[in-house]
């Protein structure tokens, strides 16, 4: 047995992982690996991909099937053609047989096709939630970075603003803000629809950025005392580069986790506000469809259950995936 020096590399290669070369893994890679092994997460991703594809291709699907959610569309059948005197549809469920012309039937009263409305409602849900998540994450990260990195008055002001928004009754604020802002745009219907849409996103952002901002601020406060940041400061790296090249990559985990937990909340809020009649009224929304269908629960269960089930699939998949993402990024959870 010789006494030739053994390098650390050789030791690792021989004893731990056989002959494979050792590669360091970033926390993100470790998390992704954990996610790939998580069966719940995989099912959620599959469900979400399906729903997103349905939403993305909604115009093509509805066009191919010849169904319309908007009864004012010149190609759509007029309500008097498909709706009976009692308000129930003349074609399809609940009183006629299933027909491929309208697989989920026609909405009583309005005469719009349920499948088309559902697909477009799903589209709205996803667009609103995605926009709100992206922008509120951006605002939260920027304000959190600024507050954490700038000692002194700016930090104090920003922290106060964060606390102010956190102690504000957010649901009430959202409920109150949306209709008040929209009531200022009582112009034509198109303008109203657009105003509702952008106001809703704006309101969700306004009350959605604080949690991440506070989280990021705390992270920055602890990270900026670490050697690598001090080293960067000492060798004269510009502040902007320190913020975005040194600090930000270290905050990927909390950002991803916060985002994936925020997304389902925004979906639920959009549908909830629309359900209460305070969100979207002029463009399709799952919440509004559920609210419209509620009075018909006894005679026309399909009309109620179609949006409820799609909505449940969407929110449950997003929520459970969010939980899985959080667990994957959390070094403390053991698998």
């Amino acid at each position, binding site marked *: 047995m010789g006494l030739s020096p053994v390098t650390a590399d050789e030791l690792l290669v021989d004893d731990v992982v056989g002959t494979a070369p050792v590669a360091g893994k970033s926390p993100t890679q470790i998390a992704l690996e954990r996610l790939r092994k998580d069966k719940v997460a995989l099912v959620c991703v599959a469900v979400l991909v399906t729903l997103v594809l349905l939403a993305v291709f909604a115009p093509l699907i509805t066009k191919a099937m010849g169904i319309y959610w908007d009864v004012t569309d010149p190609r759509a059948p007029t309500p008097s053609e498909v709706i009976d005197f009692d308000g129930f549809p003349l074609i399809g469920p609940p009183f006629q047989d299933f027909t491929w012309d309208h697989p989920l039937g026609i909405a009583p009263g309005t005469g719009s096709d349920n499948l088309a409305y559902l697909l477009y409602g799903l589209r709205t849900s996803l667009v609103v939630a995605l926009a709100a998540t992206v922008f509120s994450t951006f605002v939260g990260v920027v304000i959190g970075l600024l507050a954490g990195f700038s000692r002194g008055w700016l930090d104090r002001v920003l922290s*106060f603003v964060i*606390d*102010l928004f956190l*102690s*504000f*009754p957010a*649901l*009430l*604020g959202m*409920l*109150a*803000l949306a*209709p*008040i*802002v*929209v*009531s*200022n*745009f*009582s112009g034509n219907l198109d303008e109203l629809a657009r105003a509702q849409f952008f106001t809703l996103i704006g309101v969700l952002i306004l009350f959605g950025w604080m949690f991440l901002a506070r989280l990021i601020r705390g992270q920055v406060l602890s990270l900026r005392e670490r050697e690598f940041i001090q080293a960067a400061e000492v060798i004269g790296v510009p502040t902007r580069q320190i913020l975005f090249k040194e600090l930000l990559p270290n905050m990927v985990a909390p950002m991803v986790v916060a985002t994936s937990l925020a997304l*389902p909340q925004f979906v*639920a809020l959009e*549908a*909830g506000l629309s*359900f*209460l*009649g*305070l969100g979207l009224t002029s463009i399709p929304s799952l919440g509004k469809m*559920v609210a419209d269908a*509620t009075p018909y*629960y*006894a005679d026309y269960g399909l009309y*109620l259950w179609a949006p*409820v089930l799609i*909505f*449940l699939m969407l*929110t*449950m998949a*997003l*929520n*459970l995936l969010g*939980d899985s993402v959080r667990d994957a990024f959390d070094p403390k959870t053991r698998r």
Partner: protein
Amino acid sequence: MIGFIVRRLMSSALVVVLTSMFVFALFFLGPSDPARPLCDLNGRCTPERLAVLTEAMGFDEPVTEQYAIWAKGLVSDRTVDMGAKYDCDAPCLGISYGSREEVSTELKDKYPATISLAIGGAILYLVIGVTLGTLAAKVRGTLADRGLVTVSLVISSIPYYVVALLAWIYLSLEWGIFPDTSYHALTDGIGPWAYGLLLPWLVLGLTNSTSYARFSRGQMVETLGEDYIRTATAKGLKNNRVIFKHGLRAAIVPVITIFGLDFAYLLVGTVFTEQIFDIDGIGRWGIRALRAPVDFPVVAATVLVGAIIIVIANLLVDILYSVIDPRVRLT
């Protein structure tokens, strides 16, 4: 301690004032005419009527002056001119555009329903959640524990109002298990009161208990790993006594602080519950006021009262925290 409370009270007051200014500014600085909703609410709105109302309500004055008048009404009586004149006693939150009643009187009428709903629901979810969480921690790692965590995750992933809506449709309307879901004043007797609120309580309690179960389970698992728990077990105390007497007392502190804020949010308005089960409380009242044309005084009142409740709850929780946990020093 005193210094802490004074400072917190001051910043709390600032939050409330800023909130009221925010709501005010939103309504009056918007591009549309603030007299419009009032004008729309009562018959056809002609340009002449709009002009008369704008003049009478003082909407042509600067916003700061209007805010001053409104704020002054909170401490002294004032007369509100809305075409006709209305007396409004302090604290005056204005006159509702829709009902032409004093907003503060209506507020007092609606609050008992919301409070009843909040108290019942909150007690249920605290008790169920903490009990389940503690039991799960006691048998942690077993099938029952994992089952509970999974079920609670799944239930938490469903938006609350979907559960409430389906419960109302099927349990109340379709199958008639809870035929009557509405609010009866306590003065009508405790029976009808509890009977009408039973389903809303159950829905509120069961759906919200899941997050409490998980949270208190986490706290309990952590506490049971502490040295003093091992000591208690080692000196021969019964297992249940160790868990419920020694463990729970320490584990419940963070749970209580979260509970305080949750309860405050319930008091601010159990919006979805009241709307779905048709309970005449603050939440439903606020929603109705928000449907166009907006009943501004009611909206302002609900938001303001909501902000006050949340701010007070925040303060109380912080103080309570230092009382329950002597290690926390308020400075």
